[in-house]
């Protein structure tokens, strides 16, 4: 593939995403609202994302326990291991971890599913039945993506904290009461709020980008493979960008900092 072709493909991907943003907001407020489809997609995304995100949460706990225990021991600050790890989970790592895993598991599934619907004429069949595919296919997935990521993030926060506690005790002998004594000391409401707002925004972008790339997909199996890769890459970049923008805003305004 020449550089020009590659650039053209990425340009088309960008255009697809922009188009679907416009379509999403245009159709969001039109009747009929797809309640049933949103409910179905919510259950589906919860089930699809649950396993991956919980494994991610355990690994996250393992990683933070190792760092917390290792440096806690080095500086003689075991008592603060709980505080540091819990703060890290809520302030930063859980949203990043949940976002990237959700994008790989659920986002790519959206792109492949909608892309193959486009390829096999199912989206055209919907249009012919006077059903707008944005309303029937895109909006339910985006809304489900927002709600599921919020809930899965909350669950993965809990799992990550419990697994950090467990590994700190197992590897470094830090008893649960010591961990818990200062664990939530610095977790002020704004930190929790911004963490969940960030997850919601990331969920929105993951859902919409993934659906957009599938919705405006053109070509055959090879192109669908490439589009799916693009969906993952674009969503990873979005997760990092949203996180970065949040950091800048939080640091500038002082909102959500200790």
């Amino acid at each position, binding site marked *: 593939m020449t550089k020009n072709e590659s650039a053209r493909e990425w340009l088309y991907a960008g255009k697809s995403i922009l188009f679907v943003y416009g379509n999403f907001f245009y159709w969001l407020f039109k009747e009929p609202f797809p309640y049933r489809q949103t409910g179905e997609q919510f259950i589906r995304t919860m089930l699809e994302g649950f396993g991956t995100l919980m494994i991610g949460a355990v690994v996250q706990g393992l990683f933070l326990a190792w760092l917390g225990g290792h440096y806690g021991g080095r500086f003689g600050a075991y008592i603060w291991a709980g505080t540091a790890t819990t703060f890290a989970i809520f302030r930063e790592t859980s949203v990043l971890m949940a976002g990237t895993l959700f994008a790989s598991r659920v986002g790519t599934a959206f792109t492949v599913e909608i892309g193959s*619907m486009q390829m*096999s*004429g*199912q989206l*055209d*069949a919907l*249009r*012919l*039945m*006077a*059903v707008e595919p944005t309303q*029937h296919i895109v909006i339910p997935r985006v809304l489900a993506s927002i709600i599921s990521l919020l809930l899965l993030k909350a669950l993965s926060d809990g799992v990550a904290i419990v697994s950090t506690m467990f590994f700190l005790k197992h590897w470094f002998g830090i008893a649960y009461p010591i961990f818990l004594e200062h664990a939530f000391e610095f977790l002020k409401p704004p930190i929790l709020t911004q963490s969940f707002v960030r997850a919601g925004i990331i969920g929105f972008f993951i859902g919409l980008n993934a659906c957009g790339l599938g919705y405006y997909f053109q070509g055959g199996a090879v192109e669908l493979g490439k589009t799916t890769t693009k969906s993952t890459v674009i969503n990873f970049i979005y997760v990092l960008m949203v996180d970065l923008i949040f950091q800048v805003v939080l640091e500038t305004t002082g909102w959500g900092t200790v």
Partner: protein
Amino acid sequence: MIEVKNLHVSFSNNHVLRGLDIRIDEQMATVVIGRSGIGKSVLLRSLCGLIKPEQGSILIDGEDITMCSRKKLLKIRNKIGMLFQEGALFDSLSVYENVAFPLTYHHLFSREEIDRKVRTYLDFVEMQEFLDAMPSELSGGMKRKVAIARAMIMEPKYLLYDEPTNGLDPYSSAIVEIMIKKLQQELNITSLIVTHDIELTHFIADRIALLERGIIVSLDSRKDAFREDSLIYEHFIKKRERIQQANGY
């Protein structure tokens, strides 16, 4: 009646339809034949408003769908059913749900009425035993039959078929052919079929149009189309024989 005048459609630099004219008379089966990639599917998609032409008009019962509002287009589309290539059944829905979908989505009838209609049309296409099957469990021919039932459930005036026998074995092709013929004869549907299947064409066509270089170059009755001096005979039968002979067969 569907009337297409001076239809131009192109994608980037590819000018597919170049001033196409055709009239589809009511209660007749018109078959558009042409080589693969010549623009047959583009013509069908333009007729139901899925592709916006650059130029020309498409009159469906006197109303130009290239000029009308989205609301009006949706209303006109109610008159049209389409059988897509491969059927385009929704993978996540069962056979029953697929056929019922247009009615349940728009809440057009009571649950009992929808159930009655779905069973009637599935019975018509002889698929009543597969109500709960998923599309992935069906053969190509069965998928087309279910897709015909789904297209029929809105009781359209016009039915458009995009390569209805493409990729099917001779047995399944014959079943789909009979199904189309049955619809034609029993329900007086106006059909437009695009295909390159000459046997299907011979079996169901009342009129046959030949699409070449983006325009209709010939439109004949079935009898005239298969005469040895016709353009269609020249393009589809003689050419094939010539290629075979040139290669020593």
